[in-house]
């Protein structure tokens, strides 16, 4: 035996081995890639195309690694020499014409060693292929993105109907591509999609819900086409005794989502701004068509209102998300005090559906409400008389001060004391007002409402002396001594009466100066008293909007005074609704009790289509179907379905109205 036949033989063997290993690697990698693609949500076609590409790539890589294009004799000889170093490169030497090594080659067991090495390489390839097959078999079917990979569990379908190809073409306006599936259990097509079913053999009976769809024969195939409605339906394909079920869970084109980010909230402004910034984010699941801002300007009050309405910068936006920012010049609107500007953002999608954001209002304040913007005027307060009197006393005192240089000191003191007595009388009127507010007897200057009873026994009221009242006023006004802690110690009554107590306090100071014959020194306190009274008056002219006073009807008196009896009526009994949910639960239990996974799956699929209006419940039933089909323990899933049933709202008759817990 020469080395040349040996090298030639191993040239052929290595070529076959390299090709085989490359093919095995390609099969394994392709299978794993296909599973991964499907698991990630791709279509069957996409998955297999991707798998093919990966397989070719892996095969090319293996071929290149094995040096398929370079398997010439010297390389094969070198490979053989490498398998058995004891040959000391005899195979290569023989190939080069050396005859001394032939016996050594013949005596060696180089072929056995090379065969073992080739077998190990082949085993690696087989291992990769088996791994791919295992992934293909063991990877759970993923339902989602409109695909359910699992094949029908009912043997009747595959044997009688064969594979049914389903092609879903979404409406043109969506711009979405068509999708193809093979014998799916459940698909989620867009509403108004066109669905084409094809299969082999004679045309079967095809029904979509209660509607019959014509299936036409074409060569050896059949074709049925229908349009997806808005409601979930079960497609039934039946031929002879075989049936194939396909659940349709249509997906509606959602309304656009519009969020007005600026202005962030309703605003009241002292004067109309020159411009206002608007910013909004528009979104749509399929695609927007146009976006714009809208405004309404309302003018007037009471029973008379006028309005202007308009749009700002309408624009076509053919995307799924856009953010727009606009500066809106308000000058052309010539806004007046009391005007309200309502703003919102609006979007329409490709299907023509329109949605709007929340509305923001910008109100221009009236001058009369500038100090308290969310209030309306109430009737005048009861201290007007005091205001006039205090002002009169100030006028008299100012006149006296002006005349002070021209009159005798005794006359000045007498005149001043007379004004002082009037001031004291006015002070007592103010104190009466405070006591009336506090609910005390307004007959004297005593005070219980400052929140400082100091542990006195309940029911025993001690009249405050004028000095104590003055101290209370001091505490309330903070004019002397420590300030009252308005948040902890001060009662609401004192808080409301604070300006009057301030006035009372100032009147004491003014009266003391007047009675001592110092009218000039009394004036600052008199001004302070006037200001405090005006503050009290202003504070009490206002009440908050929204706190409207409820009118309580005296029911007994009205019933007794009733003159018109009207005509008797008979309330028609409203029948209670059938406990639908109980029936649904019974159907689930009944389906599971059959013990036949295929029949249970069919029953649950029918139920799932009926429950499509309640996505949470439908999803729970989906999980249950998958569990039953996979032969898993569905106890927890059944509990979840039961919880969903219990959590849903119950329909009640109006006559038995009760608060919903």
């Amino acid at each position, binding site marked *: 035996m020469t080395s040349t036949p040996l090298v030639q033989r191993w040239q052929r063997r290595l070529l076959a081995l390299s090709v085989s290993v490359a093919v095995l690697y390609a099969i394994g990698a392709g299978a794993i890639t296909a599973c991964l693609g499907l698991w990630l949500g791709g279509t069957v076609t996409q998955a297999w195309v991707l798998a093919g590409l990966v397989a070719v790539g892996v095969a090319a890589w293996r071929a290149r690694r094995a040096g398929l294009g370079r398997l010439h004799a010297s390389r094969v000889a070198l490979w053989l020499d490498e398998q058995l170093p004891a040959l000391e490169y005899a195979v290569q030497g023989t190939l080069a014409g050396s005859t001394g090594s032939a016996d050594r080659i013949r005596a060696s067991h180089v072929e056995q060693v090379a065969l073992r090495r080739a077998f190990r390489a082949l085993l690696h390839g087989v291992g990769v292929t088996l791994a791919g097959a295992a992934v293909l078999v063991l990877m759970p079917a993923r339902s989602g993105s409109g695909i359910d990979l699992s094949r029908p569990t009912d043997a009747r379908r595959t044997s009688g109907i064969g594979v049914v190809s389903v092609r879903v073409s979404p409406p043109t306006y969506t711009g979405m591509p068509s999708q193809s599936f093979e014998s799916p259990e459940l698909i989620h097509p867009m509403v108004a999609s066109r669905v084409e079913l094809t299969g082999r053999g004679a045309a079967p009976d095809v029904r979509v819900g209660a509607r019959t769809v014509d299936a036409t024969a074409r060569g050896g195939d059949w074709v049925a086409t229908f349009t997806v409605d808005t409601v979930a339906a079960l497609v039934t394909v039946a031929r002879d005794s075989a049936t194939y079920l396909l659940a349709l869970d249509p997906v509606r084109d959602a309304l656009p989502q519009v969020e007005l980010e600026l202005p962030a909230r*309703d605003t009241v402004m002292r004067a109309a701004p020159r411009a206002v910034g608007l910013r909004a984010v528009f979104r749509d699941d399929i695609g927007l068509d146009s976006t714009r801002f809208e405004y309404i300007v309302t003018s007037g009050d009471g029973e008379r*209102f006028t*309005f202007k309405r308009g749009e700002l910068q309408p624009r076509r936006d053919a995307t799924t998300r856009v953010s727009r920012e606009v500066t809106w010049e308000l000058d052309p609107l010539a806004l007046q005090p009391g005007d309200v500007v309502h703003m919102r953002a609006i979007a329409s999608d490709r299907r023509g559906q329109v949605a709007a954001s929340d509305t923001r209002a910008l109100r221009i304040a009236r001058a009369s409400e500038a100090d308290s913007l969310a209030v309306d005027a109430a009737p005048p307060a009861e201290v007007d008389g005091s205001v006039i009197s205090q002002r009169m006393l100030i006028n008299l005192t100012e006149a006296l001060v002006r005349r002070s240089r021209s009159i005798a000191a005794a006359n000045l003191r007498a005149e001043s004391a007379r004004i002082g007595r009037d001031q004291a009388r006015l002070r007592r009127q103010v104190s009466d007002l405070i006591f009336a507010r506090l609910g005390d007897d307004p007959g004297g200057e005593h005070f219980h409402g400052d929140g400082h009873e100091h542990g006195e026994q309940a029911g025993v009221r001690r009249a405050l002396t004028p000095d104590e009242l003055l101290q209370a006023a001091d505490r309330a006004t903070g004019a002397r001594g420590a300030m009252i802690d308005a948040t902890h110690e001060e009662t609401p009554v004192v808080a409301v009466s604070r300006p009057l107590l301030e006035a009372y306090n100032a009147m004491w100071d003014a009266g003391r100066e007047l009675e001592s014959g110092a009218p000039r020194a009394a004036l600052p306190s008199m001004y302070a008293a006037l200001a405090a009274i005006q503050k009290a008056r202003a504070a009490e002219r206002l009440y908050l909007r929204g706190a409207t006073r409820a009118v309580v*009807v005296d029911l007994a008196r009205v019933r007794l005074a009733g003159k018109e009896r*009207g005509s008797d009526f008979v309330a028609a009994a*409203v029948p209670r609704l059938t406990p639908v949910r109980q029936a649904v639960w019974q159907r689930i239990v009944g389906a599971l009790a059959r013990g036949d996974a295929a029949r249970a799956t069919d029953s649950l699929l029918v139920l799932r289509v009926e429950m499509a209006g309640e996505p949470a419940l439908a999803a729970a039933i989906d999980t249950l179907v998958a569990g039953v089909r996979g032969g898993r323990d569905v106890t927890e899933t059944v509990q979840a379905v039961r919880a969903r049933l219990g959590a849903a709202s119950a329909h009640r008759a109006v006559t038995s109205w009760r608060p919903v817990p």
Partner: protein
Amino acid sequence: MSPFTFVTLQYESGDWDSAPLVAANVIDAVVRHTSLEVTPAGRQVALGSSELLGYPFAFLTGHLPVRFTAQERAGLRTWLDRGGFLFVDDHNHDVDGIFHKTVVEELAAVAGPLSRLPTNHPLYRVHFQWPDGPPNTSHELNGWGDNLVHEYLQGASRAGRLSVLYSNKDYSSEWNFHPDNKRFYAIDNTRFAVNVVVYALTR
């Protein structure tokens, strides 16, 4: 059964409190003409709050544009789904005014498009008889601003029952007086409110 409570809806836009005496007046009318158990004072309930689910009847009025927030829209839809009855009245004396336009848009989005109620609708017969449809208001007849009579009411139904009643006859002005002053009227002009309440509670 809980006593009937007249609920006035608070909504974020507009002037929801423009007719504060309607509640007392309707309560007075219901008490006067029926034997229903009634809460003596009305309640004001925010449209987006879950408190609304405790009441089967609600009244909504105003002069200004009505733009519900998303929360208000969702709350109203839920409430109507559960059997609530909404009575909406346009407080303006105008025709095709801003309240009318905006509230009709909002109601259509929540309850579906409004349709004209025929004069033989049960609403007009459920207690007092109104064979010619809804009674006219004094504002319509003497013409405060429009001098036009709105001849019909509109509504949206669910499962064969009226769930939203819409009026632009300005009952809010017609009924916005203290019930003690009702003694000066020869005929109680709030009798139609009794029909609305009785319909809402019995149908």
